[in-house]
């Protein structure tokens, strides 16, 4: 089969990614680096394993009583003088933020890196309302200049080489740029400085929100987050409802493992704890603070098959170790959240039908579950999604028939033996020197790049039945 025929749109996108030599170079370098750093970070941290269990237990317990913890969070934020909004859908979340921007007369918004605002497609909504969003995280800034979307949960521009970034800066900023990360960062920093001072609105996500104290926690490395939350008049934080943690003591458990899992750092460079708007006598901070709590399919999964995915910390460790992500990068997945966890989150947000092909974008090797700081059993949920795709007849009928046929053969030894004989007969024209290098039809999917061993002239069970020596 040539590219295109029979191939799903996902398979075509993946195929395109495999041929993109820049992407391949960028992915190999970055994911290999992340894997090594994460391994080192945990190797020197023997208490890490127990903390991972503890973190998961806190997430589970919090989900158990999510409504109570959210009520506490809302009360805490309001006590501090902040406003809390609830958005059932992405559309609601967008209009809440746009309304705040309009009401406060905002013309420019500076943003700290946030997957929740990517999920709700906030930038497009702001632009449509005449408000200029400016991404201030270096990676996000790069992809905003390139008019792209993030391809990794924590490293949005992971798909670009430094040479590509230099070219992009030269073209878009109309100034010469060398492919040197430090020089490129200096350029971005210079460009962004004045935006921080001009912006009326600061928009962030939240890595955690502490219910007891109303604290929004931002874990970053560039310091831009602090400027976004302190310089503009208004700060809006958008977070998924599952990001609430009961107390600061619980928060400490997560902070001990998050950066290690994400970038392999012991701690991130900045851990910012933000509490409401500026209080009387304080010198900095916004005049208004808004927290937008986003459901977006999450609450339905508290009692649903994807519940475990609500423990995700968005660290990206599962992407870095995934053999599929490492080959195709994030864009090929086609949705906001890529990689193994991204498939589950996409199912949560867009429904099962959206992931009918993505559910199979995994060899089920288990590296993701191993790397996950809160031990989410991603392969198990991918299998469950596959089951749902089958049971709800979303899978193509040809596939369902093929598997039901296979099930029949495996259930009846006589059919199984017949199939072995048929295989031996049919393979005759193709078997050569103990291997099969070329098969027609569907089977070419295997043989285009790999040989296949022929069905043995006598199967093991045939030998066992007839060879007395073997049985003796």
């Amino acid at each position, binding site marked *: 089969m040539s590219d295109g025929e029979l191939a799903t749109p996902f*398979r075509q996108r*993946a195929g395109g990614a*495999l041929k993109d030599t820049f992407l391949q170079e960028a992915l190999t370098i970055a994911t290999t680096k992340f894997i090594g750093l994460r391994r080192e970070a945990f190797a020197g941290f023997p208490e890490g394993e127990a903390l991972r269990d503890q973190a998961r237990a806190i997430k589970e317990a919090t989900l158990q009583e999510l409504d109570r913890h959210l009520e506490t969070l809302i009360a805490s934020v309001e006590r501090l003088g902040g406003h809390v909004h609830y958005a059932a859908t992405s559309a609601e979340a967008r209009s809440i933020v746009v309304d705040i921007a309009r009401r406060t007369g905002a013309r420019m918004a500076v943003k700290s890196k946030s997957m929740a605002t990517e999920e709700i497609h906030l930038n497009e909504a702001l632009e449509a309302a005449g408000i200029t969003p400016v991404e201030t995280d270096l990676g996000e800034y790069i992809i905003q200049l390139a008019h792209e979307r993030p391809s990794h949960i924590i490293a949005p521009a992971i798909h670009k080489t430094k040479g590509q970034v230099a070219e992009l800066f030269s073209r878009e900023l109309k100034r010469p740029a060398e492919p040197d990360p430090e020089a490129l960062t200096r350029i971005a920093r210079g460009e962004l400085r004045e935006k921080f001072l001009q912006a009326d609105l600061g928009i962030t996500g939240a890595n955690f929100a502490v219910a007891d104290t109303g604290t929004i926690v931002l874990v970053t490395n560039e310091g831009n987050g602090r400027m976004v939350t302190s310089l503009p008049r208004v700060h809006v934080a958008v977070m998924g409802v599952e990001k609430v943690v009961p107390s600061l003591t619980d928060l400490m458990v997560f902070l001990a493992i998050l950066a290690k899992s994400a970038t392999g750092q012991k701690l991130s460079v900045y851990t910012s704890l933000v509490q409401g708007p500026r209080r009387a006598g304080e010198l900095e901070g916004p005049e208004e603070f808004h927290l937008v709590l986003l459901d977006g399919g999450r609450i339905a999964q508290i009692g649903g098959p994807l519940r475990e995915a609500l423990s995700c910390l968005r660290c990206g460790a599962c992407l870095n170790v995934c*053999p*599929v992500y490492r*080959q*195709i990068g994030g864009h090929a997945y086609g949705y906001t959240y890529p990689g193994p966890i991204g498939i589950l989150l996409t199912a949560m947000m867009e429904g099962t039908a959206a992931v009918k092909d993505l*559910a*199979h*974008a*995994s*060899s*089920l*090797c*288990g*590296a993701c579950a*191993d790397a996950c700081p809160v031990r989410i059993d991603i392969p198990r949920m991918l*299998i*469950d*999604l*596959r*089951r*749902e*795709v*089958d*049971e709800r007849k979303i*899978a193509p009928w040809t596939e369902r028939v093929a*598997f*039901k046929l*296979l*099930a029949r*053969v*495996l*259930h009846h*030894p006589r059919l*199984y033996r017949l199939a*072995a004989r048929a*295989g031996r007969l049919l393979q005759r024209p193709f078997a050569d020197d103990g*291997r099969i*290098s070329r098969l027609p039809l*569907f089977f070419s*999917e*295997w043989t*285009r*790049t*790999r*040989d*296949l*061993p*022929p*069905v*043995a002239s*006598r*199967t*093991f*069970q045939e*030998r*066992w*039945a007839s060879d007395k020596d*073997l049985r003796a």
Partner: protein
Amino acid sequence: MTQRRASLMVTCLGDLFFPEVGVSIVRLLRKLGVTVDVPANQTCCGLPLFNSGYHAEAAAVVRRTVSLFKDSEHVVVPSGSCAWMVKHEYPGLLADGALARESEHLAARTHEFSQFLVRVLGVTEFTSAVPGRVTYHDSCHLLRGLHESQSPRTLLDKLKGAELVPLTDADECCGFGGSFAVRLPEVSSQILAKKVANVEATGADCLVACDAGCLMQMGGGLTRKRSRVRALHLAELLDGDR
């Protein structure tokens, strides 16, 4: 040594494509004083159906497999993934009482081949059937499912006539993944290409794994490249001194 009995669960790939692996296991175990039987009418453990989400169909296959092995003292499986399926997924697939209990009993008595040698029989010294340098690939289900990385390495390390050399990224998937290999053949093949490059860089004569699926994938990649490295199941290597 006390007389032990073991049943061989040869698995579909083992039966159809790699019968010599089963033969090696029978010979080896017998040499070690184990009485080997092979319950008739075996087909497959059901993993391909399970992984693709066809769980009702998998459960039907599981039921008959559980009955086939109900009288076995030990069950030895040449593939880590099939052993994992029996040990981890069988009980969950059978909701009904008696058979579910039977499957838990089976799970406890089922062993991947290298684990049976090292952890049950406690034997680790063999002579290589294929002298030279060998390298070892960790199959995903054996490594991350059954948490086993040591038994095969212990056997290879002590193997007379063989020198075990480390494989870069030995714990990374080979790209097989059952139907994954044909659903996303381009991605599967690129993962394989990296594995093959790492294997060739070791300078080994022989690549060893404990899973028929991985051997099909990696062996197919190696022969396609006309590589001098042969992919072999651990049992074929240990079966020296014939």
